[in-house]
């Protein structure tokens, strides 16, 4: 079949079903793909700049507002960075509650992405609302999981997003034994439901057009299992580095078509997120999640970004199980009257914390003055880190489709949107923007 020459651009003005405002722009020059941009026009909010001169207690209440989908991530990470600066050691109970709160965020965020944002593409619907007639079971599972994520975060954090109960040094109020028992029971009843997303995605083949070698980065789980805290970042190229020194390896630059900066690892595009975590650390998954991961290995290809949906689905299974274990431990060990550790600021210091947010590595550096005021802040979000890799994948997709003689811009645009959604981008996170040194 002769290749048609097309010169008109392929554009998606506003990508629906993602968190934030972004578009896609592809400019073709004859048969060659000239430009592939993910245009980020979500307005900038300058979090690092506006926090300067403000007290650290208020700043850590403001940072979660970077993003509603991962508010707990943007709470716990800066809180840990501030504690790190001040040499404050949170109690074991505090860290357990924080991990469970963070898991609540993973459950809520992955559920929303998988069922509400991504799945309608694969089942051929414009949105989850129109699936009510044909897919009642799927929706029931989606709602049960979303409610579970919200429940965990409300019990521990005060509400499903922008949790105020998580503070520097601990918690304002610690839920009693009964709350943890109820939580454990609810989690236990969801074992089967947690596998619904995986079941839905298994069976859709991974598009070969976007398959390519790539470097994955993920935080090595602190206890050798599979969780969001750690000190060392591992790369799939075999290297590793100290999370606290992330600014030496991970950089950001400004590009003209985006209010979000573009990240790079040693100057190269890279991937971070569920697929990266699964690729590097799947051995640490809970038993059932590990088994499912092995069974559906072919759908979890580190070279293909569409696998990210499946990797999130595996994490959903894992985190429901892990949350149950932690809730169980807290039910038997909870000390509801444990006091919050008071923050004592005696000298100026800098604190760094990197965690795994639902979408990947999230890094906070806070420079705090001796009066407790923020002197400088640096935040790098996962979406900003992987935007260049996403653009490279979109380019591969367009080139692959053109090679097959597919030139209909609507068909191409739809496929591009699906690739973008598989990354689960968080555009409002990405435009928080880092401070120029």
């Amino acid at each position: 079949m002769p290749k048609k020459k097309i010169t008109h651009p392929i554009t998606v003005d506003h990508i629906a079903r993602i968190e934030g405002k972004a578009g896609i722009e592809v400019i073709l020059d004859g048969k060659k793909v000239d430009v592939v941009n993910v245009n980020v026009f979500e307005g900038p909010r300058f979090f690092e700049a506006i926090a300067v001169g403000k007290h650290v207690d208020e700043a850590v209440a403001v940072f979660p507002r970077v993003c509603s989908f991962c508010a707990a991530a943007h709470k716990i990470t800066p809180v840990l960075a501030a504690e790190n600066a001040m040499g404050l050691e949170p109690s074991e109970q505090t860290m357990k509650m924080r991990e469970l709160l963070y898991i609540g965020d993973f459950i809520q965020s992955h559920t929303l992405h998988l069922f509400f944002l991504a799945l309608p593409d694969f089942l051929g619907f414009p949105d989850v609302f129109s699936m009510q007639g044909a897919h009642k079971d799927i929706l029931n599972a989606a709602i049960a999981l979303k409610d579970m994520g919200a429940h965990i975060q409300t019990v521990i954090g005060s509400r499903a997003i922008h949790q105020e109960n998580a503070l520097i040094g601990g918690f304002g109020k610690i839920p009693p034994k009964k709350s943890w028992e109820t939580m454990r029971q609810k989690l236990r009843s969801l074992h089967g439901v947690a596998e619904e997303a995986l079941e839905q995605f298994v069976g859709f083949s991974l598009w070969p057009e976007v398959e390519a070698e790539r470097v994955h980065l993920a935080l090595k789980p602190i206890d050798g299992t599979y969780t969001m805290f750690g000190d060392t970042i591992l790369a799939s190229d075999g290297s590793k580095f100290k999370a606290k020194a992330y600014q030496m390896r991970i950089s950001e630059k400004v590009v003209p078509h985006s209010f979000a900066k573009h990240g790079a690892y040693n100057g190269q595009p890279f991937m971070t997120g569920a697929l990266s975590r699964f690729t590097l650390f799947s051995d640490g998954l809970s038993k059932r999640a590990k088994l499912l991961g092995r069974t559906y290995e072919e759908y979890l290809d580190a070279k293909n970004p569409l696998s990210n949906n499946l990797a999130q689905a595996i994490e959903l299974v894992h985190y429901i199980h892990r949350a149950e274990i932690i809730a169980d431990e807290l039910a038997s060990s909870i000390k509801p009257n444990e006091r919050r550790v008071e923050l004592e600021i005696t000298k100026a210091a800098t604190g760094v914390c990197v965690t795994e947010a639902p979408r990947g590595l999230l890094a906070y550096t806070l420079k705090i003055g001796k009066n407790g005021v923020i002197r400088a802040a640096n935040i790098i979000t996962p979406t900003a880190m992987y935007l260049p890799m996403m653009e490279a994948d979109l380019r591969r997709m367009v080139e692959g489709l053109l090679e097959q003689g597919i030139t209909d811009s609507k068909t191409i645009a739809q496929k591009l949107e699906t690739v973008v959604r598989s990354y689960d981008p968080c555009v409002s996170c990405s435009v928080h923007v880092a401070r120029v040194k």
Partner: protein
Amino acid sequence: MTLPDHEIIEECRDVCRATVGVYVLTSCYGCQLVMATVEKIMEVANLVDFKCFYMVSSKSSLHEPVDIAFVEGSVSTEKDLEELKEVRKNAKVVVAIGACAVNGGVQSWSEGDLNYDELYASVYGDSKIKYKGLQAAPIDSYVKVDYFLPGCPPEEDEIMYFLSTFLFGSYPEEIDYPVCAECRLEGNPCILIERDAPCLGPVTVAGCKARCPSFNVPCIGCRGPVPHDNSWFDSLALTFKNKGYSKDYIRERMKIFCSFDKNLEERLEKVFGRKK
């Protein structure tokens, strides 16, 4: 019957479906997230016709006329402003939803201290971006807004209250009392008086059932300022001064969610006294 000064829509009952648009300018997407996940969202989706809800539906358009428009986010780019004007043109009722649309949101924390160019330079340096940003501002700085639904994020029951009053051909009433009123009803001890915590309850509009003070966490003021001529303000807010908090500290804390309150300085003067 049309009530004077209150924009309402025709009651639908079983004969029609109200058209609703959910729009976003610049924000964290939390208001839409709460809206998309209210417990009865599937029932809501059957009762109304969503013409625009980009976050959850690819069947979305900015250009369709709607009965009710919920607008989340602050105006922070020229594109935001264009979209906002388009939404106003197409909607019967415009509701500002959430702290950003109502009061400018946390991105206005440095309002009055740093302007857009300074913020831009501190973050992007000399690099140029093809989109034009604007100083973050609440939406009523640019268009007429019929109702305000505050909160960061807004409360689920309040979203349902707004929606249902509209569908019944009525309108939501404004809350004019502070968080303290609800905090007392919750039976909480006062953490401002008893524990010296910097709780903004006295100056913050209620509706959250004192969510944070109920967790022993001082109110951060996310629902925005309580109406100005409120008597609670004088009596309770004086406690800030009595507890030794400085005017500057309280101003910075209030500014997180109140930087566009034109009465902010006057409120502070009521508590801390006028400059001599």
